């Protein structure tokens, strides 16, 4: 039984982590594509149109990967989490089916038209198809976040005697106080990722002196979008989410902030330190007093309950993993604001395009927004443990009763092998697209 739960969780964690590499780029990138396409409509400079079409090629590769790794996510609810599906399908089935209905049809229909139909449609319609692709991908995010919000903070349902969750109030799923902050935070994070990707491609073109007019365009657009989105990511949306966790999941909040013992007065904010689960304290701690209380409640002396205030079964099951995920996310987010602020400053002083150290930094920083996005999701998901539906349904009660751990291990190994291949092919294709560049080829 323990093994089954472990392999089921590992498989889901692995496949969702790999899957989320792709949508986090497409959601943000579609915004930048719409922006370039709009610039072209407005000013008729060919460069902007080529930039939009080039980014759409990268979008399309990511979209394909997102589709083929996304179908296993939907299937796995049934294959590995049958009991969870049976009990909650009446609720999260709504939001997941709506995602397909309102997002995927929109996205896939108009992506094909954007890529194949520019000459057949004219520029205004082409802009419109780009906008609809953007809309489709953000609607998709909305429904996934609505699904997750219900699992984090269940509302609008009734639990029957046989343990089944029944929908009571459909609109409550969308007015869930967890949803809007999580959605905005998530979408901004995907804008951060795509800004870094675009800035990184720009820095690369400038460093090797290839198609520099596009290098400059990508760099400029990337750092401006990147600066605005990384600031908004921390404040107000990140702050808003942290307050939600403190309010609705106080045990998870204590664990992710690393507060082992409640203090009499205001709580300190931990910058660095390693959770020591034996002695129930942080090793090598660096912390600033009272800041956490102020950030969370705007009150320097407000008491924040530590982990000692909760029963063991109320606490997240893997406290160090949760603590590290959260701190990696926050630490990286802070670095992003710093780098992007510096880049914007250099851009303003007309030095960005010539500053080699900054160009190198921007080029190599590209994996980190991905890591920040994924650790952000780990924070949300590990914080919810040991529950699937917070406070109501334990993760161990959600797995498929008939699928043995041997079968899950087999499929997990298969997914690992297959996704290695996919990842390799993905990198080759993106590298090839970047190598060709946005400049139209003359045959």
């Amino acid at each position: 039984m323990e093994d089954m739960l472990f392999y089921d969780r590992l498989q889901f964690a692995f496949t969702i982590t790999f899957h989320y590499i792709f949508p986090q780029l497409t959601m943000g990138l579609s915004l930048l594509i719409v922006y370039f396409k709009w610039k072209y409509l407005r000013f008729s400079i060919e460069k902007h149109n080529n930039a939009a079409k080039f980014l759409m090629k990268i979008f399309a590769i990511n979209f394909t990967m997102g589709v083929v790794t996304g179908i296993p996510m939907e299937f796995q609810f049934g294959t590995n989490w049958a009991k969870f599906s049976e009990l909650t399908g009446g609720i999260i089935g709504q939001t997941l089916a709506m995602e397909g209905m309102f997002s995927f049809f929109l996205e896939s229909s108009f992506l094909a038209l954007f890529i194949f139909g520019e000459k057949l449609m004219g520029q205004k319609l082409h802009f419109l198809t780009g906008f609809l692709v953007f809309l489709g991908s953000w609607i998709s995010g909305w429904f996934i976040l609505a699904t997750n919000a219900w699992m984090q903070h269940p509302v609008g349902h009734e639990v029957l005697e046989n343990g089944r969750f029944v929908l009571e109030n459909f609109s409550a799923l969308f007015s869930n106080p967890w949803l809007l902050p999580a959605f905005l935070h998530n979408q901004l994070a995907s804008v951060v990722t795509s800004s870094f990707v675009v800035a990184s491609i720009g820095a690369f073109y400038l460093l090797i002196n290839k198609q520099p007019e596009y290098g400059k365009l990508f760099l400029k657009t990337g750092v401006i979008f990147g600066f605005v989105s990384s600031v908004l990511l921390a404040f107000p949306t990140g702050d808003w989410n942290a307050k939600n966790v403190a309010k609705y999941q106080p045990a998870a909040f204590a664990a992710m902030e690393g507060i082992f013992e409640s203090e009499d007065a205001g709580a300190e904010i931990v910058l660095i330190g390693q959770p020591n689960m034996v002695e129930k304290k942080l090793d090598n701690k660096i912390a600033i007093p009272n800041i956490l209380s102020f950030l969370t409640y705007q009150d320097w002396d407000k008491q924040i309950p530590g982990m000692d205030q909760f029963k063991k079964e109320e606490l997240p099951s893997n406290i160090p993993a949760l603590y590290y995920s959260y701190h990696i996310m926050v630490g990286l987010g802070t670095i992003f604001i710093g780098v992007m602020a510096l880049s914007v400053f250099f851009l303003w002083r007309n030095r960005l395009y010539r500053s080699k150290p900054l160009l190198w930094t921007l080029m190599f920083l590209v994996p980190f927004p991905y890591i920040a996005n994924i650790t952000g999701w780990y924070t949300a998901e590990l914080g919810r443990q040991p529950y699937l539906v917070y406070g109501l349904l334990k993760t161990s009660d959600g797995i498929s009763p008939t699928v043995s751990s041997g079968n899950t291990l087999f499929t997990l190994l298969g997914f690992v092998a297959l996704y290695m291949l996919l990842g390799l092919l993905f990198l080759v294709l993106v590298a090839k697209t970047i190598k060709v560049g946005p400049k139209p080829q003359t045959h």
Partner: protein
Amino acid sequence: MEIFWYIIIAVVLAVFFILDGYDFGTGIIHLFYAKTKKDKEVIAKSAGLFWDSNEVWLVVGGGMLFMAFPTFYASVFSGFYLPLILVLWLIIFRAIGLELRSQFEFQLWKDIWDVSFGVSSLLLALFFGIALGNIVRGVNLGGVENGVSVYEGHYFFLPLWDSSFSPLSETPGVIDWFTLIIGLISVIALAIHGANWVILKTNSSINNKLKSVIYKLNIVLSGLTLCSLIVWQIINPNSLDNFMDKPYLILFPIIYFTGLFGLYFIKKMKKEISGFIFSTLLILGGITSSLASLFPVLLPSINEVNEPLTIYNTAASEYGLSVALNWGIIGFILLFVYMIIQKKIMGGKVDKMDYGH
């Protein structure tokens, strides 16, 4: 309300098999009949331009099944664990085959991905047919051994095969000689459908040859159909009861046989779309007839202990189903609009269309 959602989901899944079915079929044709470089190119393109929007129907059908009949979704997806995961892997190989072949110009690269596309299409057609066979045959619900359920009555787990390979075994596996026949029917029907699609959407040099291929395959298909009907009678003597009780359901088999019959005249057809229409009828009729013979059962139980899964004992709450109907109607209207727009812009033969890479 359950019946309503049952019909909607059946329609969505039938549309999936009709649309993505021609992609699978195109893959099978590509594997066996495309010989010249140019033919390989356009035939792959006739599937490559459309597969992802077709696959959305599977995602939406799956989502709706999850929403409307969660118990059925949970039971069937965990019970058919291994074949479903295999299908997922095949879907991935099919997709990357189509998307990657034109990325590099050297022949070896194209050959690898053509085989990936062709073989995974063939196996997908086979597996989907076998899945239908399993649904029709029923499973050992509750995992009953010696008259006692091992699991809750609505759960089961099927191995890929049972040592007897027989549908009459007490614990049949996913693959037995009955489901294999249905799998073959599916492969051949989809190959015919794919050939019709290639004729409709391309100017490949083998278009004329494909017509005689369709004719021959249709003869085999007729034989297999007859064979499956006889075997089905042996496995389940009550299989035709629904059609006796509700004679209007006979419409569905009539659709199937119209398709089957019509395809005998493939060589005389003037319009390229006619063949495609008949193979569409074939697939539509085949799926709907199978479902109609079971209705309102979704998955029969082959033991006496546990009740079959029906649309009534697996459905979500009445309130949920009726709310979903509201957004469902809006969604389908939007979808209809997209399809008209797409048809207007992307109609016609694909030979001249830009693959976009």
